[in-house]
């Protein structure tokens, strides 16, 4: 686990990390808010140092309370959600489909 240094204090997460993560998560965060979020997230990540000190090499990770098994239903036709009702809840729809702004071609 990497430690970062901001303003003389070792922090588990830097402002650059937070800005990058916000981009990955498609969250527009103003530069002025990044500092605040970095301080708060660093406080939370700081608690991880306890766990980091544990030797967990022999422990199996647990992803679910119960072992996962495939759950399949019979391959029979069943009614699904009403298309018009679903599209009525969308911000924009057209010709039975979701409508979105242009996907490519406008990147500066």
């Amino acid at each position: 686990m990497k430690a970062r240094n901001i303003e003389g204090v070792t922090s588990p997460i830097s402002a650059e990390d937070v800005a990058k993560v916000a981009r990955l998560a498609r969250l527009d965060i103003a530069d002025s808010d990044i500092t605040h979020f970095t301080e708060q997230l660093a406080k939370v990540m700081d608690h991880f140092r306890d766990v980091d000190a544990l030797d967990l090499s022999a422990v199996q990770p647990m992803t679910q309370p119960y072992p996962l098994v495939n759950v399949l239903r019979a391959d029979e036709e069943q009614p699904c959600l009403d298309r018009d009702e679903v599209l009525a809840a969308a911000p924009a729809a057209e010709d039975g489909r979701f409508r979105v702004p242009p996907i490519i071609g406008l990147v500066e």
Partner: protein
Amino acid sequence: MANIPTTAAGIADAVQSREVSATEVVEHHLNVIAQRDGDINAFNLVTSEHARAAALRIDNAIASGAAVGPLAGVPIAIKDNMCTRGIPTTCSSHILEGWKPPYDATVITTLGAAGAVMVGKTNLDEFAMGSSTENSAFGPTRNPLDTSRVPGGSSGGSAAAVAAGLAPVSLGSDTGGSIRQPAALCGVVGVKPTYGRVSRYGLVAFASSLDQIGPFATTVDDAALITEVIAGHDPKDSTSIPQPVPSLRAAAREGVQGMRIGRVTDLPEGAEPEVAARLNEAFAALESAGARIVDVTLPSLSYALTAYYLIAPAEASSNLARYDGVRYGMRTSAADTNAMYGATRAAGFGDEVKRRIMLGTYALSAGYYDAYYGKALKVRRLISDDFDRAYAQADVVLMPTSPMVAFPFGDKVDDPMSMYLCDIYTIPTNLAGHPAMSVPFGTGAHGLPVGVQVLAPALGEVAMFRVGGALEAAGGAR
């Protein structure tokens, strides 16, 4: 108007025996909501029209001699993160404001078939992330016992609705304590069943390996009644457990003769002295009711909070990726789709949701996955193994529900870590997937209620309700 019973069981009996009509019961509760909810803000939406129509159907069925369900005419409040077809479901977030789901959650269908009457959708911390209901985009819910204090969270609206008599029972969801902690702070009973006992179909996902639906009630009997109705296998939820549901109401009356009650000798510190004192009195009460106290250790418990605050945000960051302004909810216009995603999510989510999405994205990102998320999953295993060893010696384990009584507004809202510490005693249960319930047991600082938490192994609801019933009988409940 006839006297309206205060419990769900009492209402169901009175409606079926025609002492009161379902319509009278609903009108009474709509009146109480109109009088009191302006101060409390338990509801995001009161579904008066829907409730009146449902009550009329029950009354007509009874008049024609048709069979009605075990909850005939019982008003119920539903946390606003469970989908209700054609009725707004917001998760107390601007990003879903105005959204009307095209389907009902399984619990809504099940409750409707049992004759329950939904009276409204209750407030919560946005997407169930919080322990005070202060993170709601629609303003906080106030604790009915002291409106300068929080009701707990995230199911604060559901807890406050029952504590204030706005509804005899309600549903909440519990990912790290979101049913049990507000139940404790509002002085009501709150139950988180075993992971998989109650279908999650139609519950808006926060952390899918931890989320579970459960009831709030004023009595252990009512909590058992609602749990019996909503539990059971659902083919629409692939993590639903295909096991029959035992009689929990009978269990709650059975007593604790011969049971082994676990006392955790290495419990993480931090409980207020009055909370610790009530817990000791709970042990004494169970001992005099015929149970035996056995000491157990849960050495990995002190790491639970850290593991949870990596696992839950990691799952949340993935689950909440779906709110992108395309299929439902709000959209902030932008020149291209990628810019629209970022602007919509920035405008639609509150700060706590953003923090958790960023934390989770960080924990799952390249270079950090093994160091953070991978290690947290291993700690989860250690905690589960600890519980397995404890339950080899004890039938249930007793702990405080919340380290503190209801706290004033603004106390913790901008200090995430101090807010997260509210859940120190409730989180381990979610990590293990076990059931646990909070039962009111006397009062603490400022005369505010204290909850004692009964934890049991997976599918151990019978043992849990036996102890819950005994604690209530011992006089802890108000």
